[in-house]
């Protein structure tokens, strides 16, 4: 499978006149396979939006290379392959939904004969087909976000880049957007999106990249990220009901305790001596949120907020 997005040693340094320079990205290597949903997570200021802007061509990298389907980012040829939903998208509010979509279709180079059908299809994909005549300023935030996805879809691009698509939306609108993303993945579209909603990322992404202070701390699929745990969970039956400094969780007839990997042998010996029957032992399953905090803490760079 080939890559939809590739970056090599990408670096971005913002030169600032009154403050010290800001290193937004450092040595970023990224490979997003065609057909995958790639979740890009990291705290504010991590460099997610800068990466996305480089991919779109709105920002030029200081050094390194970024390619979309083999084309250098920022060129019209590369932009032919993508649809883009900006963060906190604002559109020409005096235009009607159908009108602005038509403008995007024209700019995307959709053939005149197909333009009307494409606009209709894009609006149906985001359930806005009844709003074609409504002006954008009259839409709710959730609807505007769905319009944003419709305009991104207008040229049937093989790659969608979504900058925090569920940011600021109510739970129902978030669910709508997630459904749309999953449906698009079903159509074989590669989706690259940044988000602070770690549960969403955990649910829908094939690959996840964790970015912090411009550096990619970890990148891989969910299993790789979550199983790389520093803890193991030991389940046992009978034996002690208390362990000093450890919390014992009741799991039906069994009990479970989480301990650092290197302490597992000693604990097992102790449990056996106390008459416990060992039921099982596995790497502790973490949520993406836990993994995210552990990974960023381990990098020694988590800021006190």
């Amino acid at each position, binding site marked *: 499978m080939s890559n939809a997005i590739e970056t090599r040693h990408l670096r971005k340094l*913002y030169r600032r006149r009154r403050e010290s320079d800001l290193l937004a990205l450092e040595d970023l290597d990224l490979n997003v396979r065609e057909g995958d949903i790639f979740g890009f997570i990291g705290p504010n200021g991590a460099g997610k939006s800068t990466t996305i*802007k480089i991919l*779109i*061509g*709105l*920002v*030029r990298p200081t050094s390194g290379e970024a390619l979309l389907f083999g084309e250098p980012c920022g060129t*019209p*040829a590369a*932009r*032919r392959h*993508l*649809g*883009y*939903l*900006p963060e*906190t*998208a*604002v*559109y*020409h509010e*005096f*235009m009607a939904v159908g*009108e602005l979509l038509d*403008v*995007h279709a*024209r*700019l*995307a*180079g959709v053939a005149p004969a197909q333009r009307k059908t494409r606009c209709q299809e894009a609006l149906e994909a985001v359930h806005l087909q009844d709003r074609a005549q409504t002006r954008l300023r009259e839409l709710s935030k959730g609807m505007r976000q769905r319009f*944003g996805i419709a*305009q*991104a879809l207008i040229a049937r691009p093989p790659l969608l880049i979504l900058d925090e698509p569920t940011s600021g939306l109510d739970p129902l609108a978030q669910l709508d957007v997630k459904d749309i993303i999953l449906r698009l993945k079903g159509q074989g579209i590669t989706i690259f999106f940044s988000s602070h909603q770690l549960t969403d990322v955990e649910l829908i992404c094939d690959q996840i990249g964790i970015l912090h202070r411009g550096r990619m701390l970890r990148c891989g699929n969910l299993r790789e990220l979550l199983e790389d745990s520093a803890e193991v969970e030991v389940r046992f039956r009978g034996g002690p009901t208390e362990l000093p400094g450890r919390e014992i969780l009741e799991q039906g007839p069994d009990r479970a305790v989480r301990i650092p990997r290197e302490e597992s042998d000693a604990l097992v010996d102790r449990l056996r001596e106390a008459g416990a029957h060992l039921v099982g032992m596995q790497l502790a399953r973490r949520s993406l949120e836990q993994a995210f905090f552990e990974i960023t803490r381990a990098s020694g760079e988590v800021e006190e907020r």
Partner: protein
Amino acid sequence: MSPVLVLARLYITESMRRQLHLITLFLAVLMLVLPTLFNAFGMTGFDRVTKDVGLTLLSLYAVGMALFLGSTALPGDLEHRTLHPLLARPISRMQYLLGKFLGYLVVMGASMAVLGLALLTALAVLGTHADPAVLIPVALSVLEAGVLGAFCLFASTFCSPALAGVLGCFLYIVGGIPQTFITFFLSSGETQVQGAVVRAIRLFMPHFDVLHLKDPIVHGEAVPEAYLLAAVAYGLVWMVLFLLLADWSFERRDL
């Protein structure tokens, strides 16, 4: 339709729907036709005054709109982030700038045409022969607005809209000083250094006075066709130059 035309149409549609421009235009038309009411007092030579004041008003309108629209068009799109989804399309930044500028020129041209017709109507109501030559300074005001708008667009690619407007004002005021006045100023005992500075500043800015033909038209003087063509070519060269500078600066900017 090419991306430039699509973007120009978007600019025009938005400009019309925002209504700010239409209201300004309405007020300007009102000011042009007001003199027809005052003529009830029967002042002699009032038609010439109307022509003079009307053309001055038109010129001021064009300059004001050029400063405002030229310096806010791009920063407005940047501030509202309406620019990002458009530039994510397979178009170049130059096409984006040209689309915006073409839209601006069409809006400005149409507004000035309306104002020109209002002036002719006012003159006709006053019983004067509505000389179509009045439209010559009107057309040159559009060209002047084009040059000034292109400069403000260029300035707004690297500074705030307010500063772009101030720079535009400076360009218009210094560039509009008549050459005869400069010559007189330089020959009246100034040092060589001062003279060189003034000449250098003037060298790198358009001489708007070349486009100011109000006075000869008001006084019924004929303007040679060759001069008109040269003036138009002069204005177009500066406009293209500023647009190229705008593209050069905008291409380098992180958005």
